[in-house]
């Protein structure tokens, strides 16, 4: 589904990713762990196409397409979803309006008919319930006045509504209490655990991986993957730290 080869990227002319390679097949969950400043968030932004994150070398193929040649909104329509570490507040724009326009823009990009107002609300209600989120909150402006945990749950509601093929979730577990962590973990499983989907979890901690069991765990350090293993690698990291393991 996703094939990253020898990816080099700079931010403000500073090299951050230095030869990162990673392959993710449909049906798999991968976790990337690594110390602060290793390039984890940069990887997610490069995949999303954020302006200012410049690819200087390497390639990224997503479902047979050259991902790097697509605009950010085209990447979304192709089935890529980024869960933001810091979801952005957008005053004045209601969550429901934002999601309906986004979902329909994606559908249009894929040549599908738009969702009617009623169908959309039904879908939104179902996904909000999955994340135990009050529908009233979704009538409010996007992320405005949401707590850290509510923002992360709202990200997962968005993921449920948009139904992507690949979700790259950047520290979705940060800012969550124990109960919310379980709800979010179950939400990820319900939306993304399928033979034709894949997940790339970026995290610092083992705890989310207790709910969303990864098939592969990678250690990112100095802008490249330095070690890959199974779920046991995450436990090893938790116990001994990055320096001892990588």
């Amino acid at each position, binding site marked *: 589904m996703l094939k990253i080869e020898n990816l080099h990227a700079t931010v403000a002319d500073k090299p951050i990713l230095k030869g990162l390679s990673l392959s993710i097949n449909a049906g798999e969950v991968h976790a990337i762990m690594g110390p602060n400043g290793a390039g984890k968030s940069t990887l997610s932004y490069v995949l999303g196409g954020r302006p200012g994150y410049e690819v200087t070398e390497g390639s990224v193929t997503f479902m047979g397409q050259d991902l790097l040649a697509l605009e950010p909104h085209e990447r979304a329509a192709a089935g890529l979803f980024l869960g933001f570490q810091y979801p952005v*507040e957008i005053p004045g724009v209601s969550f429901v309006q934002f999601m309906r326009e986004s979902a329909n823009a994606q559908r249009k990009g894929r040549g599908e008919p738009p969702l009617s107002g009623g169908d959309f609300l039904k879908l939104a209600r179902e996904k909000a319930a999955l994340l135990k989120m009050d529908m009233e909150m979704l009538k409010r402006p996007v992320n405005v006045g949401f707590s850290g945990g509510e923002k992360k749950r709202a990200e997962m509601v968005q993921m449920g509504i948009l139904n992507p093929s690949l979700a790259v979730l950047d520290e979705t577990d940060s800012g969550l209490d124990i109960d919310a962590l379980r709800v979010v973990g179950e939400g990820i499983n319900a939306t993304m655990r399928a033979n034709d989907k894949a997940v790339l979890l970026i995290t610092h901690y083992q705890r989310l991986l207790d709910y969303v069991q990864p098939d592969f765990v990678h250690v990112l350090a100095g802008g490249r993957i330095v070690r890959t293993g199974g779920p046991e690698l995450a436990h090893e990291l938790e116990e001994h730290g990055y320096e001892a393991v990588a």
Partner: protein
Amino acid sequence: MTALALPTRKDEDFRYADLAALERVWPVAIETIALAEGEQRALSMVNLGVRELVIVLAPGASLDLHVLNAGPDYGRLALRAELGTGSRFNFGAAQLAGSGQVLEVVTEVQHLGPDAVSQQTVRSVAGGGSSVNYLGKVHVAKGADGTDGSQSVRAMLLDRQSAANAKPELEIHADDVKCAHGCAVGELDKQALFYLAQRGLPPEAAKKLMLQAFVAEAFVGAADEEALQAQALAALEALL
């Protein structure tokens, strides 16, 4: 009586005006809107051209005035409001300018008696080398204690060729008053634009969504809020 001379750049209220366009409609007739004691009224004006209003609010009167200034040519609304004791003036204006256009709002709100409330909310969007202006004065007369006057002025520039001029002014001759003013000129938040794009919105749709929310702040409380928003949206679509 001799005709009024065409203003020049030296006239403070016309320093950013489109004088060539003004000359075509000069002189401008003054329209008076007078509310009797305790009277309440809500007015909306859309694509107004060049207008000059004198608003007189008797004690306890209340006027809601909402303006969408997006007309195809030069648009200028100049108003002087005289507020009597305990009266209320709520003014909201959105200006949406494109292709070299000049749109402006010039206000002078006079608190003549105590305990009057005035609120001005102006939201402007400028693209295509246009300019949007707000010159606004709040004058609090001697003895007009208990005045509450606020000005909230924000402008969004869509490109580096466009300009926004804002000059909020306060002139206070009473002791016990509350006068707030805020003024900001900026661009659309790039982080928010990327967030919207990552959810699938093409750049124009993302900008439209954000600008729509920005402009809507000028129409809060209008009797025909939805109609104004729909017309503003159509004007925004033409800008992007």
